[in-house]
């Protein structure tokens, strides 16, 4: 009857492991607490089903183990029992699915006041672009990528000139403000993944994808890549710092715009005006 004991141990042990093990998600730092709640609902429902099935299995094995003097009960089917179980399962599925779809609707509906930022992935580096004073990101194309224009920003688009470019440095975000994160890749698939934000999305070369979030607490968070992007995949790291508004503005003031970067890359004598006029 070792099987019965082992099955009971698996049911009880799994629940205990879930409750007492130190491994759990990182404290959330965005508005996606709903995702965590949906996950917890799912844990409760599935956990209950798992324990019920395994315990019942253990009971059956113990109670109906082989006995040469007994014959198995003959019952080809039981419509009522089966329909009841189907209905119960459908209900459980609905209870998990309904909040899930509700939260998904929020997830894909970007609030109107969200400010846009752009994350650009390449092997194996994160770059960021903020819209600058005019609040708009300029056009960008992978075709326009050159060594002095690594994000491929369209120089003929005036709204791109004041874009703030952050390369190989930390991204800062103001706390409490919704952000729409536009995702772009210039080589392979990447995935902008900050565990504390819960939200993530793949970046696809040739397309711009997005997700949105509102950072809810200040702090420094790791950025990882979550879509296999080659041998350097695990080394593709970055940092996001969520600041208070004042700290954020102070940081922003120190960053250079696309036009400034272009100017410093131009040979001496070339000025901003020429770059702008060069269009």
């Amino acid at each position, binding site marked *: 009857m070792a099987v019965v004991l082992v099955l009971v141990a698996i049911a009880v042990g799994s629940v205990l492991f879930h409750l007492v093990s130190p491994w759990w998600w990182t404290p959330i730092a965005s508005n996606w607490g709903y995702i965590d709640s949906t996950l917890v609902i799912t844990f409760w429902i599935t956990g209950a089903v798992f324990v019920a099935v395994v315990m019942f299995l253990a009971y059956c094995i113990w109670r109906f183990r082989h006995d040469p003097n007994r014959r198995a009960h003959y019952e080809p*089917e039981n419509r009522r029992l089966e329909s009841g179980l189907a209905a119960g399962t459908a209900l459980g599925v609905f209870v998990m699915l309904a909040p899930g779809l509700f939260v998904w609707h929020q997830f894909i509906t970007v609030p109107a006041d969200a400010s846009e930022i752009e994350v650009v992935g390449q092997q194996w580096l994160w770059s960021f672009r903020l819209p600058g004073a005019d609040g708009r990101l300029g056009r960008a194309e992978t075709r326009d990528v050159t060594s002095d224009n690594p994000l491929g920003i369209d120089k003929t688009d005036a709204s791109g000139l004041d874009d703030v470019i952050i390369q190989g440095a930390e991204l800062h975000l103001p706390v409490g403000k919704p952000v729409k994160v536009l995702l772009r890749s210039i*080589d392979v698939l990447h995935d902008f993944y900050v565990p504390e934000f819960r939200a993530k999305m793949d970046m*696809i070369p040739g397309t711009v994808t997005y997700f949105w979030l509102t950072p809810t607490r200040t702090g420094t968070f790791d950025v990882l890549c979550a879509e296999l992007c080659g041998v350097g995949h695990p080394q593709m790291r970055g940092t996001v710092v969520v600041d208070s508004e004042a700290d954020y503005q102070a940081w922003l003031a120190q960053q250079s715009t696309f036009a400034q970067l272009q100017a410093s890359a131009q040979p001496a004598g070339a000025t901003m005006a020429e770059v702008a006029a060069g269009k």
Partner: protein
Amino acid sequence: MVDASHGASDVIPPAAVEDVELYHPHSWWTRYVFSQDAKVIAIQYASTAMAIGLVALVLSWLMRLQLAFPGDFPFIDSQRYYQFITMHGMIMVIYLLTALFLGGFGNYLIPLMVGARDMVFPYANMLSYWLYLVAVLVLVAGFFAPGGPTGAGWTLYPPQAILSNTPGGQDWGIILMLVSLILFIIGFTMGGLNYVVTVLQGRTRGMTLMRLPLTVWGIFTATVMALLAFPALFVACVMMLFDRVLGTSFFMPAIVEMGEQLKHGGGSPILFQHLFWFFGHPEVYIVALPAFGIVSDLISTHARKNIFGYRMMVWAIVIIGALSFVVWAHHMYVSGMNPYFGFFFATTTLIIAVPTALKVYNWVLTLWRGNIHLTLPMLFALAFIVTFVNGGLTGLFLGNVVVDVPLSDTMFVVAHFHMVMGVAPILVIFGAIYHWYPKITGRMLNEGMGQVHFWITFIGAYLIFFPMHYVGLVGVPRRYYEIGETSFVPASVHDLNIFITVMALVVGAAQMLFLFNLFWSLRHGREAGGNPWRATTLEWQTPQTPPAHGNWGKDLPIVYRWAYDYSVPGAPEDFIPQNQPGAYGLTREAIA
């Protein structure tokens, strides 16, 4: 309760069964090597699949060693690590599981269970195996090709898969992988046509569809699905091969690699993902449905009770098969596809949980009030239920679109799919081998070795993959050569990784005992006799054990009843073979 109203008039005269012409082997070569006998082809398929599976097992050891002791094994660099995960994944999913369930069990069991002499197209069946073997050899050639096998991940996502800094991307690796897959698909199609047409046309007299054992239902439905799903992989492979070899841009947008603009432009990487998962999701059920079918028969036979709710089980198999074609994009929730697809695919995905859950209930309800023999096949079937329920339930996390967002691409996903389509189906394979080995060889597998193998495999596999979910919950992404320094992964995760690796080594080692048992019992196993489990289905009623060429001697069997007449009230024994005439028990008239 013997029902006299069904008398001799219902016995179908044997003369009504027409015989089929068979290709009879003339030499040792055509008997054992280029054989057209489905039973020999089955053994060829199974041996090849297990041999290549062993390679994949060793690869998983190497990966686990790297994850537990990063940097301690200098020959596992990140390049090799990604080659290992790619080959491990592809081998296990396609070349082991698909080939073993359909090519192995399908070939052995379909003709025997439906009462046919052989598959309907034996020659195509033979070609199917040889193409499979060539596909395996081409795949293995990747290990010896310059640059090694591809390291693109088993999903082979472009553009990464064919770029120069991906292992095998600009060398032979990816080409060999794609060619191997194309060969496999062509070979499989030849076999698949056989399995489908044999079930449709090869059934013996009296074998209606509703008298088929669930094993046949599972394999049949899975084959139909595979025939329709594999073309998607074929299309994806051909187009990628064009991109890689001829420089087209089906999947390749404008790309800057190493500061250089590549010639490609305009292609769509997401198109590949749609094609891949249009194959990839049905593939999960192509593996699962035969396992569902086989486990139903194991449970019923060893609990001496008819499978509970047979009709529901059949409908569930068909419904799952159909639904599985409209859930593919749940692998792509965070791929950047149109986000509104999420609503549709989350709904279909969770709906598929209902028929699947019903199957689980019916397995458990079959045990309820049964007369359970804890034989090895039964133990493996029980272990399957536990691991499948566990893995199926975590699927509800990943199928529910918004819950998938934080969990996708983490170790949670790895734990989930290993539990549900790695461990669970492989436990069924073991159960099935312990169950049918006596029919295939005439001898029982050694019980002691089997017990050791079972306990280590079951408990060990659970201990590997259950805690792994929590590594993913912490936030560790999958496909990481090493996690390195992070602020959110505690040091204790590292200890857990070491534990998982040790368990993986132990479980892997236990499989060597199983392989040894397979060979040892060939000579030293206990003589089994024709029907050691006292089972009802036709394969146990053959005149010889192992069944001879042509399976049935002079006359084909005639089927008088369904496959699950166990413990029928009034019957002298607790089982009535399908080919035994005479009515006992609850007939329509007795109920009326």
